[in-house]
């Protein structure tokens, strides 16, 4: 699952061509200047700080920048909240605003026009078949919950209420939910959705049925029409459960997926289950029965049309009959769609300054924190970056401010990381104000907006390198740092080239090797065939620090792709948590997940 997330991360990119917009509304923060308060007990906070410190000192990756997603809405025929309104701070405005009656037609317009990446007639809506789960999913299906970025609270939506009582997690389904074929959406459907996710390797399985998937049927049950019960295998932090549950869309319609659930529940062995999973993964659903406020009408080669479903509980909030999704497979076509008033908005899209200047005044640009961004990934089994001193020297040389500026292409959408520590929310000062409160002076900044060449030189000399004729060498061989990346992610390429320029100026023989995006993700990255690779440095789907550290230290990608060792050497921040310099970060991550809150 994490590996899939890593790959999706890759495919989504920050502004890359193939972005899939898989964003999920789990963010904690708004763009307010004041640091929001997060209620954390001391032990959880200390664990997070310890992990942040290990990351800062051992640098398994070098976080460079954090991303603010640009989201676009037209205001001439549509009434939407202003770009500074906190209602815009969701993933994504196109999902939630129409449901809440905040995105309404003000003029004489028939339909809302948006864009989708995949060919509409080839799109399908089986979420377990990972191909072409296209954008209309946002209005065809309802999400379990909503995350309010201001109050940092989960609000019920399809799951209207929930309670964690010891090791039993009870979910209550919203009243009046109906499938588009007229049948009621019940607790059984919600249980089926959760079960199918777990059978497919979803993260909840780790807490519900960590050992044997054969027990899932007994542990996820619908106790009545509107109540689902999850029996947990051990104590779990509720924030983590909610973070995993909240982004789910209810797609498990009984008539479409019921037989798979039955066969999986009754399967006697892992082999049987994987055979059924394989069948499920190859099933394509091109004419879905959804449960959202819009129902599927038709799709041709150029657009998907969905029409308002009057029986949805929120149908009254919507004053336009249709939404169409036009096939816009590239950033350029989306830019032009907005510039020419062809589309009425875009959930998230990277747009450089010169194109922003071409937008008509009626288009507003909202910046939404993304809790994710470009980082340099080190392959821990390749010379010379398996030496922490070389990694630190690279960190000192790179001027992250300048990288973020070039990557952002004149927009304010990329922010340089101040403390490379694996913690996100740079834009709201939350890193200093909350997560690292009181310990920031222990952290190394590696020079956010400068090239600290003297410190870098000292580290390299310590590692046995010597500067000859302007080039750093060891045993006559120049220090060679090739940085590989996906050429389709143009903003990443710009950032990487900036870093390469800075390393070259310092005397390191750096080069950027850009490959076709699918080759990079499918081959170079997933085979660990890189010395330094480009990758998002945080969990793509979540914002809570636990998920970032899980991604960095205890994920399929970390172990298999960038060959992260299980133990690192790092000075100690909180000596009641660790003894000695050697640390296994994955253990700390595991402790973080079970902490009660």
């Amino acid at each position, binding site marked *: 699952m994490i590996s899939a997330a890593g790959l999706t991360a890759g495919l989504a990119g920050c502004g890359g061509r193939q972005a899939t917009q898989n964003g999920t509304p789990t963010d904690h923060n708004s763009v307010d200047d004041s640091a929001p308060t997060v209620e954390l007990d001391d032990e959880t906070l200390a664990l997070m700080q310890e992990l942040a410190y290990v990351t800062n000192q051992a640098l398994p990756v070098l976080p460079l920048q954090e991303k603010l997603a640009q989201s676009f809405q037209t205001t001439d025929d549509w009434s939407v909240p202003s770009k500074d309104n906190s209602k815009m701070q969701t993933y994504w405005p196109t999902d939630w605003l129409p449901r809440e009656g905040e995105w309404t037609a003000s003029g004489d317009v028939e339909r809302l026009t948006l864009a989708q990446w995949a060919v509409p007639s080839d799109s399908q809506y089986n979420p377990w078949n990972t191909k072409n789960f296209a954008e209309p999913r946002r209005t065809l299906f309802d999400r379990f919950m909503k995350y309010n970025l201001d109050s940092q609270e989960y609000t019920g939506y399809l799951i209207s209420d929930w309670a964690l009582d010891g090791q039993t997690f009870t979910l209550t389904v919203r009243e009046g939910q109906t499938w588009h074929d007229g049948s009621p959406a019940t607790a059984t459907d919600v249980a089926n959705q959760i079960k199918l996710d777990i059978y497919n390797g979803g993260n909840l399985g780790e807490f519900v049925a960590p050992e044997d998937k054969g027990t899932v049927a007994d542990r996820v049950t619908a106790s009545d029409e509107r109540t689902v019960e999850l029996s947990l295998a051990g104590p779990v932090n509720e924030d983590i459960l909610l973070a995993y549950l909240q982004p789910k869309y209810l797609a498990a319609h009984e008539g479409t997926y019921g037989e798979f659930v039955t066969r999986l529940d009754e399967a006697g062995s892992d082999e049987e289950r994987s055979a059924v999973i394989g069948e499920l993964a190859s099933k394509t659903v091109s004419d879905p029965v959804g449960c959202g406020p819009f129902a599927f009408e038709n799709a041709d080669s150029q657009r998907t049309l969905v029409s308002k479903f009057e029986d949805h509980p929120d149908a009254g909030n919507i004053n336009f009959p249709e939404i169409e999704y036009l096939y816009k497979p590239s950033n350029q076509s989306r830019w032009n769609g907005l510039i020419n008033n062809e589309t009425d908005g875009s959930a998230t899209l990277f747009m450089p300054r010169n194109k922003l200047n071409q937008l008509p005044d009626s288009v507003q640009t909202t910046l939404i924190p993304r809790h994710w961004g470009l980082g340099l990934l080190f392959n821990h089994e390749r010379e010379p970056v398996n030496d922490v001193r070389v990694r630190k020297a690279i960190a000192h040389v790179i001027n992250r401010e300048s990288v973020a500026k*070039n990557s952002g292409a004149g927009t304010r959408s990329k922010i340089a990381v101040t403390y490379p520590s694996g913690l996100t929310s740079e834009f709201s000062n939350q890193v200093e104000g909350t997560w690292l409160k009181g310990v920031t002076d222990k952290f190394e900044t590696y020079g956010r907006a400068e090239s600290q060449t003297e410190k870098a030189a000292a580290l390299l000399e310590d590692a046995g390198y010597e500067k000859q004729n302007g080039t750093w060498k060891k045993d006559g061989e120049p220090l060679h740092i090739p940085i590989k990346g996906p050429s389709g992610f143009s903003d990443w390429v710009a950032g990487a080239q900036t870093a390469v320029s800075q390393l070259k100026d310092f005397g390191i023989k750096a080069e950027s090797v850009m490959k076709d*995006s699918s080759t990079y993700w499918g081959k170079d990255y997933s085979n660990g065939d890189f010395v330094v690779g480009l990758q998002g440095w945080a969990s793509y789907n979540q914002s809570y620090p636990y998920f970032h550290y899980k991604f960095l230290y205890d994920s399929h990608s970390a172990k298999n792709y960038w060959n992260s060792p299980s133990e690192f050497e790092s000075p100690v921040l909180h000596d009641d948590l660790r003894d000695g310099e050697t640390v296994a970060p994955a253990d700390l991550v595991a402790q973080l997940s079970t902490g009660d809150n």
Partner: protein
Amino acid sequence: MDGSTRGPAEVSPVKRTDDTELSDERDPLVDAVDADADTDVDPDERAITGRACEEPVATDGGTAASEFDAVADASLTDTERRRQWVEESLLAPARIVWDDWRARTGLVIVSLYLLMGTVGPLVVAKPSTNQGPLLVGAFRSLSYPLGTTLSGTSILSQIVHATPSMLIMIASGAVFTVVLGTTLGTLAGYKGGRIDSALMTVSDVMMTIPGLPLTIVLAAALQIEGNPAVIGVLITVNAWAGLARAIRSQVLTLRDAEYVEASRIMGMDTSTIVVGDIVPNLMPYITMNFVQQARAVIFGSVGLYFLGVLPYNNVNWGVMMNAAVNRAGATSSVAAFHWLLLPMVTIIVLGLGLTLLAQGADRIFNPRVRARHAETVGGGDGEDDSTATTGGL
């Protein structure tokens, strides 16, 4: 190289004229006729007879020698031979080129690119980010005359520093195609038989594979890491097949030509015949193809870089265009259009230069044009202006 193989055949008339001038009454042919008529002739005077091949004949040099030696000894010292070679191989083509405006323009353009690829990187600063403000237009500032990109990189720096690797790529692709195509084509055409059918089967198979998808797949499958020489070969990976087929059919028409047959009867080995008699006759065609392949490599590579399917580790004209479109939407943005336009112009001008040069090359290898220029050189030692007067004709 071809001066030595072609020299005697074409130059001899010129030099014979000189001989005649130097030794008035000793026209060998006339003497020979005389000799046949009069048996009492001085051995010195005897020249070409029916026995010329078997027996020593007299020449104006006086001592007995073969007819072939005689001409050379009498007329050419080493220095002369060298000068003649220079005239033959360098000056005459150069004059032909200079007489033709297309070839002249082509040559100037290609030389400028060679200069840009060799001296350019030493003169122009390396491209790096933040050399100037973002997206400065072309011709607005002296420090970055062609403007800057969205990362503030000077476009002039990028264009100039991309040239060496582009030239390497072009050369490697063209050399690969031409060497392989010519070798296999000539071999198949001259040898015939099984070798012919085997080689042509291979080349037919290669021809039926669509080149572009093959290149894309190979680029993804191989570990090439953006090495320009390898990419040049990759882009033309099956272009040699078409050339080999065409050359084979040319060779088929030549292999039964009289002079080739003569060489064969004289017992010369295959390689000498191929190198000395056949390939020189194909040179115009081969040169044209070399230039055409060079163009194909540029357009192919730029196209593939533009699409983003080739790996790269350096600046590159195609990558610049790709970045301009993908990062700044240059096709519909006035602010970024120069970023797309300038590398495009760079490519178009080089393509034009190579095309013009190819047309000029045709004239260089046209024997009649060439002979006229060589003659002018040979006869006009003392009169420099004769070149100018006859050259234009």
